[in-house]
């Protein structure tokens, strides 16, 4: 096994990524990820939530070096991920894997499942063909598929089965951290539950750390120990999942939570109506990114950006509002539909 320099924690500090698009009228910069910091202690799962385009998938890919970040530091188990090159980077890749959203584009249509699962083993491990076969079969069984299915091609499987294969591929190298980039979002609800149960089982059996990127608060609440809420490329609130969703400290978190339908007719409440659109990341508003849509914004919010600051017992938020607690709020610009 790899010698451990740290304690297995995954730490991201001040991560930023700007995409530059060269168009007809000069270059346009989109700050997709802006000064994002978080930590995934070994064996825990961190949720990353936010609406489409908030940069959460960019974070997921940047920390695996699938997109090169512009600045910031990524440290996994004491190893500087951003500085790793060649053999060191390959060794790191073994330990950090990704599960994708779309089960249809995540498998090479020309390769049998066996080829797909055995290839990483052949590239990384110097073990006999027999051991490789056994490992691939074990991974298949671990995700709940029969080993006979190894000889088949991806198009012969359903979406949920393909997602299991994608998970098996991520697991064959025995990684320690798995980044799940909207891993259940494209699946039917019943299949979602199966896959979530599978991931939970894997986390318990293997002691995996998870970065769980999702827009689905219910799934995150179910799966994650802690959660980061992202808005316009920045983390606006961070804390233990249950606390954050039960008692949001940032107006945006509250808005997100109140937009999420609750499957209980007695708990029916007017759906929130959100004022305004998400500002373009290419042209973000000055100050707090959320202030144009926030009822509690005052003068300072549109001038200076609030920093993510620890509030109390393990929670942090980026907001100036002094009384932004669940009880005190009525002022968020929401109305009955």
């Amino acid at each position, binding site marked *: 096994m790899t010698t451990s320099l740290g304690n297995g924690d995954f730490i991201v500090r001040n991560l930023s990524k700007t995409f530059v698009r060269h168009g007809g009228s000069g270059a346009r910069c989109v700050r997709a990820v802006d000064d994002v910091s978080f930590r995934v202690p070994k064996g825990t799962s961190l949720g990353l939530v936010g609406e489409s385009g908030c940069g959460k998938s960019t974070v997921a890919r940047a920390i695996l070096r699938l997109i090169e970040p512009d600045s910031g530091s990524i440290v996994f188990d004491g190893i500087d991920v951003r500085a790793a090159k060649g053999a060191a980077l390959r060794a790191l890749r073994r330990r950090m894997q990704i599960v994708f959203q779309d089960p249809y584009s995540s498998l090479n249509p020309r390769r049998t499942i066996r080829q797909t699962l055995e290839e990483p083993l052949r590239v990384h491990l110097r073990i006999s063909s027999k051991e490789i076969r056994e490992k691939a079969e074990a991974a298949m069984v671990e995700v709940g598929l029969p080993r006979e299915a190894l000889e088949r091609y991806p*198009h012969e499987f359903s979406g949920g089965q393909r997602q299991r294969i994608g998970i098996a591929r991520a697991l064959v190298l025995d990684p320690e951290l798995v980044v799940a980039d909207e891993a259940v979002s494209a699946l039917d609800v019943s299949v979602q539950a199966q896959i979530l149960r599978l991931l939970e089982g894997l986390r318990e059996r293997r002691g995996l750390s998870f970065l769980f990127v999702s827009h689905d608060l219910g799934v995150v609440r179910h799966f994650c120990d802690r959660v980061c809420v992202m808005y316009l490329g920045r983390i606006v609130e961070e804390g233990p999942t249950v606390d954050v969703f039960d008692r949001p400290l940032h107006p945006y978190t509250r808005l997100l939570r109140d937009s999420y339908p609750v499957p209980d007719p007695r708990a029916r409440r007017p759906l929130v109506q959100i004022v305004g659109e998400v500002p373009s990341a290419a042209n973000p508003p000055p100050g707090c990114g959320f202030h144009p849509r926030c009822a509690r914004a005052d003068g300072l919010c549109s001038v200076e950006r609030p920093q993510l600051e620890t509030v109390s017992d393990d929670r942090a938020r980026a907001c100036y509002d002094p009384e932004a607690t669940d009880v005190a709020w009525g002022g968020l610009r929401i109305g009955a539909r």
Partner: protein
Amino acid sequence: MTIEVASVAVSQPSRLWLAFSKNPLFWLGALLLAIIVAVAVLAPLIAPHDPLEQNIVARLEPPSAEFLFGTDNYGRDVLSRLIYGARISLMVGFVAILIAMTIGCTIGIVAGYVGGVLDQLVMGVLDVMLSFPALLLGLMIAAMLGASLQNLIIAIAITEIAPFARVARAPTIALKQQDFVIAGRALGFGPVRIMGVHILPNLISDVVVMSSLWMASAIRTEASLSFIGLGVPPPTPTWGSMIREGFDNILDAWWLAVFPSLAILLTVLALNLLGDALRDAIDPKLRGE
């Protein structure tokens, strides 16, 4: 959750073969091409006459029992020239396209995968090449290198590189954003492996289908260059030069141009049928299970 499982594990070559054998058009194309190749290979055994032997007395004879496809301006047997010409045409077509496909695909995939400045540079050069008609480009190269079979193949191969590179580059750019390619990078696969194992097999069917068409265009270019005198020097028979020679006498000796044209037509047809069958067989989604 259960899934039905194939009773027998079938290895990949036999799967391909199964897909082939069920396609009647594959058999037609294969049969045609087999005949043409056999004719080319066995030319000395089956040609009724010496293709180069001139017989001034028997000039421009119409098809008869002795000269099945008639004779040309110098009294040479058209059938025998056709049989020998198959060797040149097939060789030029196959070899030139094989060279062009190998080089063109490599250029297209690397340019598309690496992207950035390299991509722009390479595609700029290829655009310049594409802006010349194939014949003109082939003419320039053949003129520079001199007239010989080898140089003809090189010239035609170079003219066909750019279209292959284009056909390979476009799907590469789409494929490199697919999750399975990104997964390959996350799994620590090197760029050569990703391009060779994950990108190439997913675009090769496009390339193969196109190559059957371009083989036809290569045979045409060969014909044109041979006519101008930059191809295989006379009196070696090639289908192209036979058509061009026959063209002068099209009104009073139709057999001179018609039989070589028919030969080209059948060869191109066979190639297209095979190309289609190959595409269907390579793509697992089009396979009837």
